[in-house]
């Protein structure tokens, strides 16, 4: 561990520089993804891939949210599909209402409903919908988080409670045909937004651009949250929550806040994903999709924001290629992926690159390994033996 020096007024200029470089890199990548990739792919006749990329980038926003609570704060949520779906439903309800005044969406007639349910009314308003996309998930996440965290329920208990909450909402949306069209979900691609059809290429291109911009914004938000004092508090909660409590801090507020922010990010992701895939159904709230978000983060690298985005894109592209060609193999592959990431690559791709990857590269290039401790310790066979046989045992017990 290194002792970090809290920057005073003079040191600030020095710290700004790497941040500016990072911002430049992010902006450059965003510009490439926005303006260079679409023409190339369409030119190659693979415009379909751009649509996929847009969707997966939307999902990467949700992965950032999971990274925030799992990678940094150590709370594993198995119920984030709930927030994705809430955001998706909020936007889908607005789009369903873009019909001539006095009419109600078609599906209501199937179930003999003649009057719009009350909770649909606010979704006539565009500003309300935009706020609702992240505010409703934040509210639900905040309430659930408060009720759970204030009782110091954490670890596995928290995980399975989020999963139960997910299943509860799944049952609710699945069963309420008259309120929200039940299992069939809400379609968005045939609806209109500002007079243009949502499924048409120009509108999809706009959503693609919006996704890239919001992904960058989400990245910036998470970067800001995790870098300052709040970020250090989150890591402290992850590493030793009782100690944080003994030091006089109350972790509940921080945990509720970060959980709500993460839920809000998932809501935005859900809205963007829904308009690009054309439909939102309660299936999004089944058990599997939520755990998949977690595995993207695990593959990319926990506690690394870049890793979350990278993992979401990699795993989703692997899924779309593999499951289309060998549907039977995909589940085996996914199961193996879970096992392999957890046992062999616990810090994910980015974590591996940061530690062993750099070491391997150095040894390939014939450079000397960096030494973290005294050189004599590194060559001591007894120390080496102890590291191998006893080093990882501290968790046992």
């Amino acid at each position, binding site marked *: 561990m290194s002792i970090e020096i809290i920057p005073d007024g003079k040191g600030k200029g020095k710290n700004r520089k790497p941040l500016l470089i990072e911002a430049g890199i992010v902006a450059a990548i965003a510009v490439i993804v926005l303006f260079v990739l679409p023409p190339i792919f369409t030119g190659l006749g693979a415009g379909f891939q751009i649509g996929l990329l847009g969707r997966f980038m939307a999902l990467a926003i949700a992965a950032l949210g999971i990274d925030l609570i799992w990678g940094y704060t150590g709370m594993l949520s198995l119920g984030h599909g709930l927030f994705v779906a809430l955001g998706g439903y909020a936007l889908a309800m607005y789009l369903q209402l873009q019909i001539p005044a006095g009419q109600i969406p078609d599906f209501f007639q199937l179930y003999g409903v003649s009057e719009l349910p009350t909770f649909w009314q606010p979704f006539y308003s565009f500003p309300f919908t935009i706020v609702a996309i992240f505010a409703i998930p934040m509210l639900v996440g905040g309430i659930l988080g408060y009720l759970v965290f204030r009782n110091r329920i954490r670890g596995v208990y928290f995980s399975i409670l989020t999963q139960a909450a997910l299943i509860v909402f799944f049952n609710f949306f699945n069963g309420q045909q008259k309120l929200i069209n039940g299992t069939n979900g809400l379609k968005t691609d045939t609806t209109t937004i500002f007079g243009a059809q949502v499924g048409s290429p120009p509108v999809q291109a706009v959503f693609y651009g919006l996704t890239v911009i919001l992904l960058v914004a989400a990245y910036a938000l998470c970067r800001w949250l995790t870098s300052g004092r709040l970020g250090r508090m989150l890591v402290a909660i992850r590493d030793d929550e009782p100690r944080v409590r003994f030091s006089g801090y109350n972790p509940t507020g921080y945990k509720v806040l970060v959980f709500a922010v993460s839920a809000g990010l998932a809501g935005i992701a859900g809205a963007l994903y829904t308009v690009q895939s054309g439909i939102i159904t309660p299936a999004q709230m089944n058990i599997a999709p939520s755990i998949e978000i977690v595995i993207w983060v695990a593959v990319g690298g926990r506690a690394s924001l870049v890793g979350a985005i990278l993992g979401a894109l990699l795993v989703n592209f692997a899924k779309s290629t593999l499951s289309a060609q060998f549907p039977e193999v995909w589940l085996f592959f*996914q199961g193996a992926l879970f096992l392999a990431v957890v046992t062999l690559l616990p810090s994910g791709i980015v974590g591996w690159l940061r530690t062993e990857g750099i070491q391997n590269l150095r040894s390939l290039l014939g450079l000397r390994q960096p030494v973290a401790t005294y050189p004599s310790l590194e060559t001591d066979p007894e120390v080496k033996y102890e590291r191998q046989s006893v080093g990882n045992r501290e968790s046992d017990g």
Partner: protein
Amino acid sequence: MLSGILDGIFNGISIGSVLLLAALGLAIVFGLMGVINMAHGELMMLGAYTTFVVQNGFKQLGGVWFELYIFVALIAAFVVAAAVGLVLERGVIRYLYGRPLETLLATWGVSLILQQFVRSVSWQFVVGLGLFCLLYFGATTLLARRANWQQIRSWAIAILLPISAGIAIAIALVAGQMYKLPFTQPWFGAQNKDVTAPRWLRGGIPIGDYQLPSARLFIIGLTIACLIGIFLFLQKSPWGLRIRSVTQNRSMSACLGIPTKTVDALTFAIGSGLAGVAGSALGLLGSVGPNTGQNYIVDTFMVVVVGGVGKLVGSIVAAMLIGTANYVIGANVLQPLVAGSPALSSFFEFFATASMAKVMVFALIIVFLQFKPAGLFPQKGRTIDA
């Protein structure tokens, strides 16, 4: 009115006993190792499929034998699920102790693999898998005798894995071409399978004008038998004593010479075996499919959360409470009591379906946890990590 109450009690206990049977193994394992096994539902499914296979075998024998197959099936389901659980513990979970969240993910991966396994298992698949294991593990065992094994290990695995996988797949494909359909046809496929209950479990026992279904009575009896068995095992046998001591204090038990790793493996195998028995019982209630287990895991997790860790009685009370609450809300049993107030009446009406009852029960669980965050019967101690 009387039959209504009787109906409510019986159905509540009946749903609760299925839950309890399913949650029992999970609760024991969680109490001992702090591990939630997401593949628990799939172990139940394996038990159910074992019952299906045993039933098919006994159908060939016919007659009296078929009436008794369920007892053989229960034992077989226990053995199969326990064996799979043992492999799971030795192969995966023991590397992840102290990292419960990662264990959740790993066992979820196992559950996906098991689901797809029962869908696509065929002779071709089994031959390929067996061949791969033989080649890969045989070669690694041979190479492990070499003195420089630690140095060549990663290289050896990187080379052996694709080679043995390639050979196994190639031979399985060639054999599939040679023997055609009987060889490549999946054993179970993706469709649900029906388990036929023996005749004596199909009827019911009439009490007045109300009929108690025998299958459900059998499951209640089975649950009680399993509870007594587990209770005796934990309280009276030497290994039970060791399991209890490791549950209370792992480090101290290890210091006193208890082989904690063996205890872990044994407990996990028993917990998995109980899941197999639960799955076997489920086969009597409905058809069996690759997704059978998924429907039960969340409910069984809730039993563990409400019941608390380390005491059987917690699981029993929690399972019965959740089962009864599910039934009472889902079937709107309280209807006569609230008929006076239209607001309450319509409120209960809204939740009176099986899926909406779950919504209500979850809300009740969250409220309950506000008062007892560690469950009904929490383990007493001074640890901060309780």
